[in-house]
């Protein structure tokens, strides 16, 4: 019974933060918080199973910003050159719970304030 309760509770957690791609649990991210990070793009990794934007933040830290797989970005209007090294961006993230400079991307704005992406961005 305890076991049943334990995995029911775990399910509730996973339901609250279910990733569409299901590559890994989203439990490492605190989806009750949003952080906004501005900085300079160091690298845009257009890779499976996740894309990442490495950003040198104005806070002096390097942020790892996780995104979905390339196919999800593509279907949302992103392309491999949507952000390039040296670009100034502002990203909203659900941050890592462990306090490290990283998170999963909610949206990304370019220097001119435009939100990158298409229909589902």
């Amino acid at each position, binding site marked *: 019974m305890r076991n049943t309760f334990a995995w029911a509770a775990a399910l509730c957690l996973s339901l609250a933060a*279910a990733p569409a*791609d299901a590559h*890994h649990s989203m439990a490492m991210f605190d989806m009750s918080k949003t952080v906004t990070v501005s900085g300079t793009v160091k690298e845009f990794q257009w890779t499976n199973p996740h894309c990442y934007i490495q950003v040198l933040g104005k806070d002096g830290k390097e942020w790892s910003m*996780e*995104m*979905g*797989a390339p196919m999800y970005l*593509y279907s949302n209007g992103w392309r491999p050159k949507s952000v390039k090294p040296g670009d100034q961006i502002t990203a909203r993230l659900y941050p890592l719970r462990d306090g490290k400079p990283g998170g999963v991307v909610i949206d990304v704005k370019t220097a001119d304030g435009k939100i990158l992406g298409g229909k*589902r961005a």
Partner: protein
Amino acid sequence: MRAVTIAALLLSAGAPAWPPAHAEDASPAARQAAFAKLPYWPGLWLTEHDESTIGGLSVAQIEARESGKAAEHNPALSLFGFAAPWNEEGKKRQAARMNQGNGNRTAEGWGYPMMMNAAAPLQFLITPEEVLMINAYRDVRHIRTDGSPHPGPDDIWPTVWGDSVGHWDGDTLVIDTIGVRNPNVYFHGGPPLSDDAHYVEKLHMVSPDRIEGEITITDPATLTGPWTVKLAWTRDDSFGRMIHDAFTNDRTDNENATIAPPADEQPGGEKGE
């Protein structure tokens, strides 16, 4: 009598019962005629309500979060197994999986049956001899529709995608699948069924943009009775084309969930799988 004797001798000599004798290939004209009678399900298809944000999060989940209401849809979990009629062994396996972390284990895809419930786009390629189902994670199913049977017990072993044979009942594709390795071994989202589970699917295009289906699973080792899961796919042109690529940047670690930069950028680190 003599034929029976010869057959018995062949069997006792270990002659393989499978593959079946190869039928003659159809003439091009006969094949074109066969093709013309088949349904056509063009395009790329996505599990209904399973669109993703750029963060790889479920749009339905995010909308529910923002509205403060429970999500109406959680399609990725249809085959997870929480609604399955597990017997004691099945319950034990379900409980065990929750203690194993949520890493992706060995998978670069989802395996069967989860690939039918994935967020990845899926293609249905229908030919007279077989139906191919291919998704963006390179999960591939070959469903023979040429009348050949499943291999006999000595000629089949459990694999991630199993062995499928099918036939058309009007416009409905009926598929029989066996020989699927416990889907939870390959992919953490897979239900922990036994290798002896039997899967029967019925798929039907109800409109040019929608396919409906159901999978009924029987598995006396883990289920008290048949478990039926209804699925639906909608055509999604936003993916443009089917694109495959390897997993070269998996930063997650089952025990230490992290998205720290790749190990080769860290002193003394080893790249995790």
